[in-house]
């Protein structure tokens, strides 16, 4: 981040960085959505940010990523020496030789790695949004544990694609039935049937509705950059901070619009996208 002051900065560009798997999401649709809301701002789609890692920094970044793993949800930040295998795995993910998934990373630590990778040439005039196929968490001081997140707000903002599926809670009915099936020792087939029966209630992997959710989350990221306040309390506004899958679907798909207050605010910001903090 450059030394330009936030209060004087005007948003001129939004950079959308592809996730590790370039086919994970159709970013051109997100770009179109944001361009529609902020016509004066240039929106770019850039390759996965770790493509900036070269041989001189590969060892360091691999080790830092391995250290960014969230291993104990009850601890704010756990220091540990990563295993040889963890560093090797991260080296493969950076090189695009291994897919990511199944591991939770501390969103704050990830953010600090990404900030350093973006260091040169970035300022408050550019909002950077990183899409990732990794799961990310942040610690909540409300209940003193880490929680999976869809978005980790910061500079840059990180949007976790599997987080859209895993972070907002599924309905109680789903969990009760699933637990029941597991206690009965039911196999994978029974769980597949359960997911199919309740599929309208949550966003699943490879769900065509995901793109609509990502548009709203990207807008939240831009609003964080502009105002530090990305959320709305209205359940029918795309800026609603959904903790439940049903709320996520309601705010981003069923309603799929902005509330009156945010329509007005975004219209004002669109005319003059100056940072308000």
């Amino acid at each position, binding site marked *: 981040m450059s030394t330009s002051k936030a209060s004087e900065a005007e948003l001129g560009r939004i950079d959308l960085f592809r996730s590790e798997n370039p086919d994970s999401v159709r970013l051109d649709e997100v770009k179109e959505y944001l361009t529609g809301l902020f016509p004066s701002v240039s929106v770019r789609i850039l390759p996965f940010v770790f493509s900036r890692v070269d041989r001189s920094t590969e060892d360091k970044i691999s080790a830092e990523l391995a250290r960014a793993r969230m291993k104990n949800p009850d601890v704010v930040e756990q220091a540990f020496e990563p*295993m*040889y*295998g963890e560093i090797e795995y991260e080296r493969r993910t950076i090189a695009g030789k291994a897919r990511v998934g*199944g591991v939770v990373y501390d969103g704050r630590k990830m953010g600090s790695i990404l900030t350093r990778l973006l260091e040169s040439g970035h300022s408050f005039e550019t909002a950077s949004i990183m899409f990732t196929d990794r799961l990310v968490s942040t610690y909540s001081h409300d209940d003193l544990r880490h929680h999976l997140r869809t978005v980790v707000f910061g500079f840059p903002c990180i949007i976790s694609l*599997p987080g859209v599926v895993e972070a907002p809670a599924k309905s109680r009915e789903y969990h009760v039935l699933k637990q029941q099936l597991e206690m009965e*020792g039911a196999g*994978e087939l029974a769980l*597949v049937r359960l997911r199919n029966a309740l599929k309208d209630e949550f966003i699943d*992997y490879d769900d065509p509705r995901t793109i609509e959710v990502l548009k709203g989350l990207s807008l939240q990221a831009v609003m964080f950059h502009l105002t530090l306040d990305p959320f709305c309390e209205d359940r029918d506004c795309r800026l609603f901070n959904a903790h439940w899958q049903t709320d996520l679907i309601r705010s981003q798909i069923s309603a799929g619009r902005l509330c009156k207050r945010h329509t007005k605010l975004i219209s004002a910001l669109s005319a003059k996208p100056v940072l308000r903090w």
Partner: protein
Amino acid sequence: MPIFEKSSERSVTRAIISEFAKDMENFANTDVIVIGGGPSGLVAARDLALKGVKVLIVERNNYLGGGFWIGGFLMNTITVRAPAQKLLDEIGVKYRQFEKGLYVTPGPLACSKLIAAACEAGVSILNMTSFDDVVLREKNRVSGAVINWTPVALLPRQISCVDPIALESKIVIDATGHDATVVKKLEERGLIKTPGFGAMWIEKSEDAVVEHSGFAHPGLIVIGMAVSTTFGLPRMGPTFGSMLLSGRKGAEVAYEHLKGK
């Protein structure tokens, strides 16, 4: 006229001892030792043997196959997600599509065919043999396995004080399932620190097991459910596709390493 040719007890005994002794001498120094003969271990061993690598499976039970005989709730239907069914094609296992991308087949059929495929590829097998310890060389690189007969390990020490033997290899593969026995042995020595199972429930973890299959320590590759234990990935249900593909990935990593040497 009798059905069988005439033979003596001493000939039978000599045949067993001489062939086994020849095998044991051969096992003393192999390219790869796979600890655990479940689905991932069998696939890894078969793939390596097909490429001409000298490979030995050490299995603590009398039978091979691990949990591959049976699916969830003791029901012997095995489920496999695409693209792992391609491996079933390779070994001639028939299956049917349950729904798009999900295939089912009888466990006994899949398991017995996989064992046969590994044996036919030239994999050597020591069953009823337990892993006891690792052989360590310079910079604590894993360079072999210390083994003993399983019955010895099961008997009280005072009546079974039989010393183990050591086998050398270029690579050891831990395919011991959730126990991750080889990795745990390194942990006992303070050479590795595993995080335990994933602390958060994540529904999709099959890819993670496959992608983490590889070196966990110099000289030691982990595959199958041992990957979950070693890297703290979420515990999975009976998802055999990832076991099969994890074994394949481990073999690829091992082969690349051997080729580079």
